[in-house]
């Protein structure tokens, strides 16, 4: 099986390298803890092409977050290499290539929702007028118009999560990395935001890395689905989606959709010990 994956990966690389935005080669990351080393990532190789929408799915603790953090130079791999736009992840970060949505909202409590969204704009030196215009636009996008002056703790968890998404969308990062952005939301809101995200992606051509626990979500959104397995964290399957880029919600009832979902589920199940 490992053989197969490697084959597939290398095959895949050949196709995608031309426009590869993110290239991971034999990436490993080991945390040293009191209980001994934890191999969060081991020999992970993956190419992400420009404009791709890549989902990461896998059991809790398999290293999805860690992988995303490596891409954004928030974690330093203990082995292998990762390049972004042909330079190191650190250089890409300094060039402000990333918009990152964390697993938890992580808004600053002393800033209003508007202030939080304005934060990256201030840091990157956008003009005041531009700031105001952008804040208004992304608030609209995540259905939070009218909440600009509220403080984070005055909003429900789901609203906070949406604000943090807006924050990442406010500036023009080429690469959007989202770590379970819709975890705290109910199915309806989730569907709605999924559609919005697809539309935004189609419009801007951003490259997106997206972590989720939901199989339908992964299949619905992605051009490429990366299934990961734990202990040590590695890639167990990479699925290139044959679905068209234009995706109405109903696409979820098509046989192709269901077939991909099945393949993802099988890959996922292999990572668990349950024998059913």
């Amino acid at each position: 099986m490992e053989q197969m994956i490697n084959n597939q990966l290398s095959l895949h690389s050949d196709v995608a390298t031309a426009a590869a935005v993110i290239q991971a080669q034999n990436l490993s990351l080991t945390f040293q803890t009191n209980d001994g080393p934890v191999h969060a990532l081991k020999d992970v190789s993956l190419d992400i092409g420009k404009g791709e929408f890549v989902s990461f799915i896998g059991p809790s603790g398999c290293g999805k977050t860690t992988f995303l953090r490596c891409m954004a130079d928030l974690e330093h791999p203990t082995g292998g290499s990762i390049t972004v736009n042909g330079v190191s992840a650190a250089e890409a970060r300094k060039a402000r290539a990333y918009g990152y949505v964390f697993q938890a909202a992580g808004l600053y409590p002393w800033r209003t929702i508007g202030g939080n969204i304005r934060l990256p704009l201030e840091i990157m030196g956008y003009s005041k007028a531009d700031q105001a215009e952008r804040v208004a636009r992304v608030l609209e996008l995540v259905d939070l118009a009218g909440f600009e002056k509220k403080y984070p703790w005055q909003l429900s968890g789901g609203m906070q999560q949406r604000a943090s998404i807006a924050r990442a969308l406010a500036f023009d990062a080429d690469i959007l990395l989202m770590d379970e952005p819709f975890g705290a939301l109910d199915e309806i809101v989730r569907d709605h935001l999924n559609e919005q995200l697809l539309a935004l992606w189609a419009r801007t051509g951003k490259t997106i890395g997206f972590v989720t626990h939901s199989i339908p979500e992964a299949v619905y959104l992605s051009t490429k689905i990366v299934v990961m397995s734990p202990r040590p964290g590695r890639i167990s399957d990479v699925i290139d989606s044959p679905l068209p880029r234009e995706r109405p919600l109903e696409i979820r009832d098509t046989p192709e959709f269901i077939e991909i979902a099945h393949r993802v589920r099988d890959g996922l199940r292999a990572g668990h010990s349950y024998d059913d």
Partner: protein
Amino acid sequence: MMRQPSVVMRIGLPLGFGLLVLILWELLVGAFNIPPAILPAPSEIWAAIERSTAILWVDWVQTVVKGALTGLVIGSLAGFGAALAIDRVDFLRRGLLPVANFVAALPIVGVAPIMVMWFGFDWQSKAAVVVVMVFFPILVNTLAGLAATDRMQRDLMRTYSASHAQTLSKLRLPAAMPFIFNGLKISATLALIGAIVAEYFGSPTKGMGFRISTEVGRLGIDMVWAEIAVSALTGTVLYGLVVLIERWVTFWHPSQRRGR
């Protein structure tokens, strides 16, 4: 969950308690015939306050305004600045912090005479003692505050590739405010005590510490208590002021908002 107590309760209860203590005190002093040289009755203390408002005012200006507040401001700024430096340069953190720890352990009773020797009798030496006393609480609390951001908050700044100054001004200082105010609350009371104690080791012929130490020798215990009352009142007001500013600055902190 718990209902917020009304302002009446919040002020009335402690005030009532204080009054009760005063009344009991007055009665006990009368009943047991305690000589005023040991413990004057509250009525006598009040008489002393009324009689000596001019002196109390002069003392207050000398000790609080010139000594304590100057020292508090200088010491707080110095502690804050040192914290920023230590935070910026890891070398200093590992080197200076243990030493600062040691300096903080120097007892005021020993420091005060040295400061009087170095800076003279007037308020400058008192301010110097206060600086030494408040420097450390501010330093430690600021450092703790600067470290109080969580990883995700810092990582966010990293993804923006924010500069050290930007991270400081937009993330770490706001996050540090609750801690800094804790340090200020401690410092506000320490400053008063420091300025008063320092006057024991040499002073001009005015100041709260001067008055207290002199009047004990003259058996003017009512005057001693008058100064104690002024000191307590000043300290409480100073503390309350810090709390008010804290409320205003750290409105967002969970401890400042009940419910949501």
